[in-house]
């Protein structure tokens, strides 16, 4: 299962979960449905992120307090977001979010 290794590399390099890699590969290579791919990807990310955090901690890069201050409220945020998803038109939100990402990319390039 090359997916795990590739996702780990991607996640470790960029500090993201790896779902961007895992979900499409599960759908394409293993004929997963969208829901099963998302669920299984999340479970895999728990392992990937925990392990990558440990390695980054060895490099002294992890800011423990900031990580918890961001991560714990994010759990509540995801619940709110998931709840709203059933009740909102996601098209406009997706476009807004894409615009936020572009703005963040420009900001990072200018730093």
């Amino acid at each position, binding site marked *: 299962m090359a997916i795990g290794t590739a996702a780990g590399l991607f996640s470790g390099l960029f500090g993201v979960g790896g779902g961007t890699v895992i979900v499409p590969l599960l759908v394409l290579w293993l004929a997963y449905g969208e829901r099963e791919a998302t669920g299984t990807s999340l479970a*895999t990310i728990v392992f990937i992120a925990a392990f990558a955090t440990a390695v980054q901690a060895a490099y002294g890069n992890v800011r423990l307090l900031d990580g918890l201050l961001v991560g714990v409220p994010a759990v509540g945020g995801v619940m709110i*977001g998931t709840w709203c998803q059933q009740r909102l038109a996601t098209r406009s939100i997706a476009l807004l979010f894409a615009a936020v990402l572009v703005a963040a990319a420009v900001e990072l390039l200018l*730093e």
Partner: protein
Amino acid sequence: MIAAIAIGLAAGVLGGLLGIGGGVLFVPGLVIFLGLSQHQAEATSLLAIVPVALVGALAQDRRGNVCRPDALRMGALSIVGAAAGVALANVLSGAVLRTAFALLILLIAAQLVRRTPKNDPNAPKKA
């Protein structure tokens, strides 16, 4: 401290809405609003992802959407990749890593626009 909580909440809400991982927003949020270096932001983002993914995975597992054997296998095999990715990140300079990350989120933005057509058959019924 308030900025960190705001980043977490906002990233969580957007992630839940759009099915995008929080890390894509945690990293730029930590760099831009908390002034962390790219390396610190990526490392801290990984830590922040753990509780989010854990709660999400448990919820999905209850609905029977987690294929446990595959998740365990991929998780185990990711260890080598994750160690290599972190090592690679740490040999790159902050500027190079930041530029690569900026290109990554531009790609994700493009993908997001492309995969949500106006008449999405999977769009919520009450849209």
